[in-house]
């Protein structure tokens, strides 16, 4: 059965989703393909959460297609400081998201497509899904030299990674999602996925770096749309789906009740940064003040994204010891966040002696501290 891939359902969703049988979609059994109308990484991750928590997948399998505007997505148990260049991301306005599935860090932009395969826990089978993707791509471009590795990556020409995989298993449902590089910005990708951090010790899941390539480089006639259609068509064939792809708006509460709360949760500091497993930082930096260079040594333990313990080793008497210990005391318990640190250090200045030199030294030290975050 061939899916009319050129026709996507743009009908108001109500007529497709409001059926007498409870649940999402036109039929209560069989396959369903949905595509997101949004490019917001948090909204799209929220859709995954929603389907995982609320949909009854006993007799149903769902394929979710989505793309995001520039964002770095880290795995559930990873450390963003270790995985990416946070400062660069802030400068370039690239969002940071933490997904609920495991695995490593990836860079998303509109040249990358994301596929999520939802099934019951019992029918969770990653290899099958990836074989489906390879089959679809080969049907589109038979000359592509692609294969699935035993680490669930898809490699091009035996060496370049074009797809990475991660999965989430719940009590009754599971999902497997993967990326697919069509035409992503490789330059930005490699610069943001390189952490400048030294002296970080952690048990967080590390990413395994790989050389990547875009399918577009192999065949410039390929577009994301074509890849999405090819994969959707293969899925529809294998699951005997005869209705078109359902477009969904991930902010529509009538279709996805409670979805906006899910997106909001994914954006909270507590989720994105606070879920980082315990880690420690042991580093030193130089500060140039007037004509001298100062060595500063910093040791910090961070738990739930907050500074649990902090030690700053400064040259003797450069700053009054009382002030230094005031800074350490204030940082303890505070978020390991440059903005929080700036706000608290600026506020502390109000109750310090009003001395220009003292203030300059304090600001210099605090600015260097925020660079660590």
């Amino acid at each position, binding site marked *: 059965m061939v899916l009319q891939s050129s026709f996507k359902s743009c009908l108001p969703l109500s007529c497709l989703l409001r059926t007498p049988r*409870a*649940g*999402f979609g036109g039929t209560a059994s069989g396959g369903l393909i949905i595509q997101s109308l949004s490019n917001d990484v948090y909204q799209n991750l929220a859709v995954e959460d929603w389907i995982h*928590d*609320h*949909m*009854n997948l*006993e007799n149903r399998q769902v394929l979710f297609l989505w793309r995001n505007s520039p964002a770095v997505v880290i*795995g*559930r*148990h990873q450390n963003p400081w270790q995985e990416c260049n946070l400062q660069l991301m802030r400068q370039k306005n690239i969002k940071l998201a933490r997904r*609920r*599935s*495991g*695995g490593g860090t990836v860079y998303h932009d509109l040249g990358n497509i994301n596929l999520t395969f939802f099934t019951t*826990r*019992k029918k*969770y*089978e*990653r290899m099958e899904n990836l074989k489906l993707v390879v089959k679809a791509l080969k049907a589109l471009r038979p000359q592509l030299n692609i294969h699935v590795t035993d*680490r*669930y990556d898809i490699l091009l020409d035996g060496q370049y990674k074009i797809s990475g*995989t*991660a*999965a*989430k*298993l*719940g*009590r*009754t449902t*599971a999902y497997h999602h993967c990326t697919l590089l069509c035409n992503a910005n490789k330059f930005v990708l490699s610069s943001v996925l390189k952490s400048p951090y030294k002296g970080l010790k952690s*048990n967080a*899941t590390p990413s395994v770096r790989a050389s990547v390539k875009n399918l577009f480089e192999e065949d410039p006639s390929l577009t994301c749309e074509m890849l999405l259609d090819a994969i959707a068509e293969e899925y529809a064939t294998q699951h005997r789906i005869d209705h078109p792809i359902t477009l969904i708006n991930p902010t529509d509460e009538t279709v996805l*009740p409670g979805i906006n709360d899910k997106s909001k949760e994914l954006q909270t500091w507590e989720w994105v940064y606070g*879920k980082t*497993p315990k880690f420690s930082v042991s580093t030193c930096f130089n500060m140039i003040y007037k004509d001298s260079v100062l060595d500063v040594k910093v040791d910090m333990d961070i738990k739930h994204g*907050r500074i649990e313990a902090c030690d700053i080793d400064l040259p003797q008497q450069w700053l009054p010891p009382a002030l230094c210990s005031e800074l350490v005391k*204030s*940082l*303890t*318990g*505070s978020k390991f966040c440059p*903005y*929080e*640190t*700036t*706000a*608290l*250090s*600026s*506020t*502390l*200045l*109000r*109750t310090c*002696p*009003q001395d220009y030199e003292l*203030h300059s030294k304090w*600001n210099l030290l*605090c600015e260097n501290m925020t660079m660590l975050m």
Partner: protein
Amino acid sequence: SKYACVFDKSAFNFSHQQRLFRTSAVSRGQIVQFKLSDIGEGITEVTVKEWYIKEGDSVSQFDSICEVQSDKASVTITSRYDGIIRKLHYNLDEIAYVGKPLVDIEIDASKGVAPEEDVVETPAMSHEEHTHQEIKGHKTLATPAVRRLAMENNIKLSEVIGTGKDNRILKEDILNFLAKQTGAILPPSPKAEIIAPLSKSETVPTAPKDKARKIPIPVSRPIVFSGKDKTEPITGFHKAMVKTMSAALKIPHFGYCDEIDLTHLVQLREELKPLAQSRGIKLSFMPFFIKAASLGLLQYPILNASLDESCQNVTYKASHNIGVAMDTEQGLIVPNVKNVQVSSIFEIASELNRLQALGSAGQLGTNDLTGGTFTLSNIGTIGGTYAKAVILPPEVAIGALGKIQVLPRFNGKGEVFKAQIMNVSWSADHRIIDGATMARFSNLWKSYLENPASMLLDLK
């Protein structure tokens, strides 16, 4: 029934509302070793990444116990039983084995052990209205114990509001629902009624308890409130604010309030708004308030000063770095507009736009947050008329602006007209600022705003 759970009916005697239904006391329950179930794909070992519970916590069936990871898959392990966690078999980052015990759970003795196979959430039941599984495509979360309780009392789960995690329906929710249905108070048990008549026919002085039993006074219905106090440490920025405000307390504040007629200013702003918009800037009233304050500070520089710690010296600050209080995610932050004394109103508006954008993103920098010399707080955008603002050290004055209200006022001819009125409340450090200075500054500031054309004469 499909369920093997056994219920002790006496547990649901409603005259004993306060009884706890969790395994809080009495008999020691049976300890069950909850094993790590099959993950699929032939996986035999996983790493424990996060514990959601600790030893001593009580759990319900389907509550999340921990998160484990195996080869790019993150798995949420949920409890099969209701009970209390007695032992965690692994620490964080340790390897856990499929088929081996993960946690030990003490099960309530009166309940028995739930069936071994996974309880599927959508069973084919004949009592469909009692186990109403799907509400608008949702699964109603409730343990089999709770479902049975609902069924026994002819309650539709869809009508009960769940207060548990993920809107799960708890036993307490069913009881609340029942309490509402049966009326304000529940009638006394039959036993009590039999005893009461005996006490009437005697010469024995009536014991106080008999009197109490005679009168079932309708009191407010028993509220089953399961909220708990929550204590958190004060950290980071808030800790710094505590220090600042405690220091501010040492400053002897005096207040001075007045009313400003902004009718002309409102009109002027309406005229200038489109012009500012064409230059890409949003023009509010604040730039006018800030510039007028700076003009006033030129005449009364003591308000832009700082007193040293020992109160021996006053430093008159050359720059007018006027702080604007902002309500952000982090709390009350006060960035300042630098050198207002040499800035035009448009430049001030432009700076404010920049600071507001950074403030709402919680991303203000050190330079923007330090060096302020005088502060205005526009609390009126939220509401209020008069306020008593607290001076932010090391400054010596602060102004709080109330909301602009349309009020009737008399003009020079004795006629009533519509005026746009805003109240200002100044606070100043009485150690170096006296009432007269504050009043004169306020009058000058007021005159600039009530008659904006007069600002042109003194603009630098």
